[in-house]
């Protein structure tokens, strides 16, 4: 899965062959998912054609909506990367949501402190958020490594704890007493990500997303740590025989993914989109990284492409929700179909038939030339 040349084949497959094959599979999944969406919209909407048209074109209609799309794609990339990193090590930790919340809380504490109003507010907020996320990612990792505690359950439980912690701290500590609001005050300007394109949500977070993509790619494919990590994910027993400390790799992967989750928290609260901390601001966003990672086959360089495509669909669904009678939650159904199709090993319909025909023609031709040679 992670190597370019499959052993056993006569001709090593080139990187481009693998990429093309994955692209074809992805395209088929997207086409089937879109057909399913058309069917769902057609059966449930009173104005199906308008709804579908909105879904497909609305994100490009205004500079503001383009900004929403790009901003979404940057954030989806980061959550997708965090999931890719742990999935590559075959750890199904689902803790990005919790890491996001603790990162956001940490960044909020920095931004609302006296430091937040100085130049140090922005970098310190980001660092503290990443640190908080890393610690939150480390916990299920060490519990798994030392005690064998199932990382799916522990990371999910930590998510719920983080959400409640955010609810609690916002209500009790971070909001001016007596205001009754569940939103903190706006952060000082020095603690906010500067906008890259004025009047849109595109901000410094986009650059962080790009850096994160390149960084994770480099770490996974150009360092020994990454090689070990992929080995552990691919064949843990072999990795053990090769003398790789699987537990260390696993915990470090989960910690690094936690730092990415924390960064995402900072991108949310310090970004142009929010600029403050609200209870339950994330609304399940982090889990969409699971789809991104699965569709991108955990490859960091494929993550932004999937994030852009899925982010477009997601934005379209939200605009469709506002402008027509189809609820945005239809995207959940589409996401499930895409995950199921991409993770299944299905062939292109009729492919077996065509290859059989081609092979027969080849053997006939070979027999014919062989006959001539004799």
């Amino acid at each position, binding site marked *: 899965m992670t190597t370019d040349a499959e052993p056993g084949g006569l001709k090593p497959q080139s990187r481009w062959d693998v990429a093309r094959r994955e692209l074809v599979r992805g395209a088929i999944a997207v086409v089937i998912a879109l057909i399913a969406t058309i069917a769902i919209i057609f059966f449930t909407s009173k104005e199906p054609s308008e709804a579908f048209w909105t879904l497909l074109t609305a994100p490009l209609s205004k500079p503001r909506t383009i900004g929403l799309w790009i901003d979404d794609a940057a954030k989806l990339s980061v959550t997708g990367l965090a999931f890719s990193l742990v999935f590559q090590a075959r750890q199904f930790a689902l803790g990005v949501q919790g890491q996001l919340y603790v990162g956001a809380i940490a960044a909020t504490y920095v931004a609302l402190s006296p430091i937040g109003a100085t130049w140090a507010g922005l970098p310190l907020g980001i660092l503290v958020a990443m640190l908080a996320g890393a610690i939150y990612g480390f916990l299920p990792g060490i519990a798994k490594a030392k005690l064998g505690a199932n990382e*799916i359950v*522990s990371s999910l439980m*930590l998510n719920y704890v983080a959400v409640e912690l955010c609810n*609690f701290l916002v209500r009790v500590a971070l909001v001016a007493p007596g205001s009754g609001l569940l939103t903190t005050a706006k952060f000082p300007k020095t603690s906010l990500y500067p906008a890259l394109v004025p009047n849109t949500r595109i901000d410094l977070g986009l650059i962080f997303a790009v850096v994160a993509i390149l960084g994770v790619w480099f770490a996974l494919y150009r360092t020994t740590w990454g090689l070990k990590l992929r080995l552990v994910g691919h064949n843990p027993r072999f990795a053990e025989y090769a003398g790789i400390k699987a537990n260390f790799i696993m915990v470090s992967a989960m910690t690094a993914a936690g730092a990415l989750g924390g960064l995402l928290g900072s991108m949310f609260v310090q970004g142009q989109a929010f600029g403050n901390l609200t209870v339950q601001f994330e609304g399940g966003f982090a889990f969409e990284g699971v789809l991104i990672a699965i569709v991108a086959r955990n490859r960091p360089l494929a993550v932004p492409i999937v994030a852009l495509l899925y982010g477009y669909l997601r934005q379209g669904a939200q605009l469709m929700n506002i402008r027509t009678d189809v*609820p945005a939650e239809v995207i959940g159904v589409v996401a499930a179909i895409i995950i*199921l199709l991409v993770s299944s090993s299905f062939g292109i319909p009729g492919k077996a038939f065509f290859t059989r025909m081609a092979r027969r023609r080849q053997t006939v031709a070979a027999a014919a030339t062989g006959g001539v040679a004799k």
Partner: protein
Amino acid sequence: MSELILTIFSAAFLATVIRTSTPLLLATLGGLIADLSGALNVALDGIMLIGCLAAVVASAYAPWYVGVLAGIAAGAAVGAIMAFFHLRMKADIIIVGFAISALATGGTVFALSIATGGDKGTSINLPSKGIPAIDLSFLGGIPGIGPFLVGVFSGHSFLSWVAAFLVFAIWYFLYRTPWGLWLRSVGEYPAAPEAAGIPVNAIRGWSLVVSAALAGLGGAQLAMFNYIGFTANMTAGRGFIALGAVLLGARHPVGVLLAAVLFGAFDGLTTVLPGLFGWIPPELIRMIPFIVTILALVLFSYRAQRALLLRGAR
């Protein structure tokens, strides 16, 4: 403190524990079946949610038992989809579980909106029904402990008794019937039953269907007794707590029952504590079941790992 102890041992609290444990126990039993057949069913929470919605919508138009059956049927259908993609299409079972979770969180809100003509996230306009309570007030005639028995055991959902019976039935099935042996062997070492001519894939498929049907039943209990009606994400992680309960219960029906009751007790505590200790912030009280699950998992894993080391396996 003494108030807390008095409350915990009161008949009313024990009755609350039975009530909060029932959906958890049903989902946990579902998780147990899947786990023993060798598939970690991470979609339990999503299937419960789908079961909730199916039960609520069906019970609005039909008698209560049709609602319960709809919960089971919806769960079983989801299980069949999972089995198809896992066994026929060779998709990773955990990833299939993620897909079902995505389907459940978005799809239930979407389907509810379609079913009610635009309601977002709650079924407030659907006249859904509840599961009737079983009245056992005749137990009060027993001298001495009669009133206590009535307080604890009377007025529970029909499904609480079904769940208790299912613990026994599943134990009997797993350890006293050939099919149970087949199921366990498929999860333990699939090559052996394969060689013995046992239909491994059929057993795996049926286990997933039954597992999901049980989770759907748990959803029906949640939406037709613990609460009446559907709200978005009403399972609140119960399916994942059930997953933890399977591991904590040492993958045995009785152990699983005890684990589900333990987690149910802490769930019940979250409803009792605000009345007793008003000064504890409600957010922290709501954290309790999740923190207890983590602690229980960590402690149990530690013990299990030591036992494994002592046995010299791996």
